[in-house]
């Protein structure tokens, strides 16, 4: 009898999820630095994310509004995501909530039409990521609020979305930026997958709207960089400052194109992901100059509308000896160009490339030994962007100090090598990207740039500099850190 009663309670009650779930991500670490750095081995992820990233946390809450009783039934849910890069006692932000944001809120509704999922709200989507770099080159809708439809079958997926990116791009100086895009992913055979996609932006100039895209005519790029546009105008037009040109209304547009190829599941190749992104950057709005106590807004659409960026990344995961030894190998190439700027160093005018190789041996399923190495080169297109020595300020253009030069250092190329090693505790077993992970690591970096890591060194060569200067090209860091998705 008891079993019958028990079974009655079970009827229609199979495995079900709770109506509210919380997922997310965290990484937290301590990296005391005895060389005066702020706790990262190098400047950024180009040298591999390990020891170059700081703490990060994310919470993604899902509330199920309508749960599918069985596979293929209609369902709907709401997601709220908050995330940020500061944790108490681990960084300068000390966990202050101003470092966090409500990054995503959206409603999902699925299977009202078979295999179709509607998404309303924020729309971020990506093909995948490069785990060694913690980069996601093939992304769309990261700045979009709107509506999308995702049609998915066993081997194919089509995502089409439309919305507005104005607030993401301009915040309080909002102007509507219409955007639409798509991704298409197909898997013709089990071991091969490819995808393409793109997103376009259109910002219309509305007469009378001070947040619309404008251009101040007759601005010289060099004058603008120096903050001397108004001063120059006054010099050329004495006593006619009131005749300073008024801005001209414009329409602007930009776009992103992405591609993806994945293959694997044969020989030692677990999987290989290749991503490519080409994007033109949306123009910037304005800058401000002050002349004789008066504020002038310089509208910069024409000076910032020829920027583009190409990013290519590949990551291959190899199982050399099953359950004993895995390797992950990544390559990254980026080229940023600014057609308006031929004179000044800029993040919009540079080329970089790197390769990262991580090797992980499984001493026990839960205990691993890790070695990683990377080599990277960054080149400035418009002159010397890096300082090789503490006194590089004296080795500027043509070997002479140039107070009005746009160069910053004595070389246009930064070359960085990093090596990292340590032990990893993975309670869930083998796998380079298996988490959670507890890592005890030592990292070393050599760069041709002086003090090539976040630091608080004084660079001034002024005779009254009380702190002195320091020249060092090696950097060493020891870290205890943990990382988990949940």
């Amino acid at each position, binding site marked *: 009898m008891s079993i019958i009663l028990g079974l009655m309670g*079970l009827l229609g009650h199979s495995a079900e999820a709770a109506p509210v779930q919380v997922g997310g*991500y965290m990484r937290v670490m301590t990296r005391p630095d005895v060389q005066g750095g702020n706790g990262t081995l190098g400047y950024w992820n180009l040298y591999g994310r390990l020891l170059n990233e700081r703490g990060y946390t*994310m919470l993604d809450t899902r509330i199920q509004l309508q749960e599918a009783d*069985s*596979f293929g039934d209609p369902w709907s849910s709401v997601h709220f995501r908050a995330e940020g890069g500061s944790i108490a006692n681990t960084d300068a932000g000390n966990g202050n909530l101003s470092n966090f944001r409500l990054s995503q809120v959206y409603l999902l509704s699925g299977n009202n039409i078979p295999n179709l999922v509607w998404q309303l709200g924020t729309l971020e989507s990506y093909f995948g*990521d490069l785990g060694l770099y913690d980069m996601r080159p093939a992304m769309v809708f990261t700045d979009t609020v709107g509506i999308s439809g995702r049609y998915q079958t066993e081997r194919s997926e089509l995502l089409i979305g439309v919305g507005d990116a104005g607030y993401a791009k301009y915040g309080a100086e909002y102007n509507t930026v219409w955007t639409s895009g798509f991704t298409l992913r197909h898997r013709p055979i089990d071991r091969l*997958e490819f995808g393409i996609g793109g997103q376009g932006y259109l910002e219309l100039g509305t007469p009378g709207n001070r947040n619309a895209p404008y251009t101040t005519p007759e601005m010289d790029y060099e004058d603008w960089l120096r903050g001397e546009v108004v001063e120059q105008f006054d010099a050329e037009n004495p006593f006619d400052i009131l005749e300073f040109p008024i801005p001209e209304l414009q329409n602007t547009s930009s776009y992103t194109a992405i591609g993806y190829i*994945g293959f694997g599941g044969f020989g030692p190749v677990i999987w290989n992901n290749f991503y490519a992104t080409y994007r033109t950057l949306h123009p910037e709005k304005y800058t401000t100059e002050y002349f004789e106590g008066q504020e002038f807004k310089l509208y910069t659409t024409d000076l910032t509308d020829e920027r583009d960026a190409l990013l290519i990344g590949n990551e291959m995961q190899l199982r050399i000896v099953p359950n004993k030894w895995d390797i992950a190998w990544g390559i990254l190439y980026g080229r940023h160009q600014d057609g308006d700027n031929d004179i000044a160093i800029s993040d919009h005018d540079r080329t970089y490339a790197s390769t990262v190789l991580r090797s992980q041996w499984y*001493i026990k399923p839960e205990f691993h030994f890790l070695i990683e190495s990377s080599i990277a080169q960054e080149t400035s297109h418009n002159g010397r962007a890096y300082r090789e020595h503490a006194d590089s300020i004296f080795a500027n253009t043509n070997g002479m100090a140039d107070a009005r030069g746009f160069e910053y250092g004595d070389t246009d190329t930064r070359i960085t090598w990093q090596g990292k090693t340590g032990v990893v505790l993975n*309670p869930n077993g083998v796998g380079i990207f298996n988490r959670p992970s507890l890592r005890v690591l030592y990292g070393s970096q050599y760069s041709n740039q002086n003090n090539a890591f976040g630091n608080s060194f004084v660079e001034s060569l002024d005779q009254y500099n009380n702190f002195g200067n320091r020249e060092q090209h090696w950097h060493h860091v020891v870290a205890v850190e943990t990382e988990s998705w949940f």
Partner: protein
Amino acid sequence: MVLITLLTACLKSPAVVSSSSTEQWPTWMILEMTEDEAVPTSVSNHLAKAAQQHNITLDLQPTPADFEIAKHVGDVESPVLVLESRAEFYAQVNGRFRWEVDVKIDIFDGTDHISEELTIPVFHQFHHERQAEALEAALPTLERKLHSLLNKQLSAQ
């Protein structure tokens, strides 16, 4: 090496209660899809191996397309194990594809039954990994839970 040794010492293997004699339990392991399917053999074999440590042989039964638990355990006399599972995509989270595996494990022994429901988050690196891979990723947790339930059942006998 010292660190590894110390950390190894911290890991504790779960205690295993064994049956005094070898027992054979009819078992259904179901994955809910458009039609109900058996869980991947990599999962069922792994769990069967875990049950062997308790001196229990899980006798996997064929899976009908519309599995209903009442039809299969209505008049059982010997212990029966039923594992029902469902895996669904949750969201893209910081570069991973987060899935949730909902699992319900029931053990009936003719007079009473014990039951456990759990939700296991798993994180795929690749988009093409779906339900089957989600169950495989959930195996460490599933195995621990199965050990716990079998210990409970055998201790009560």
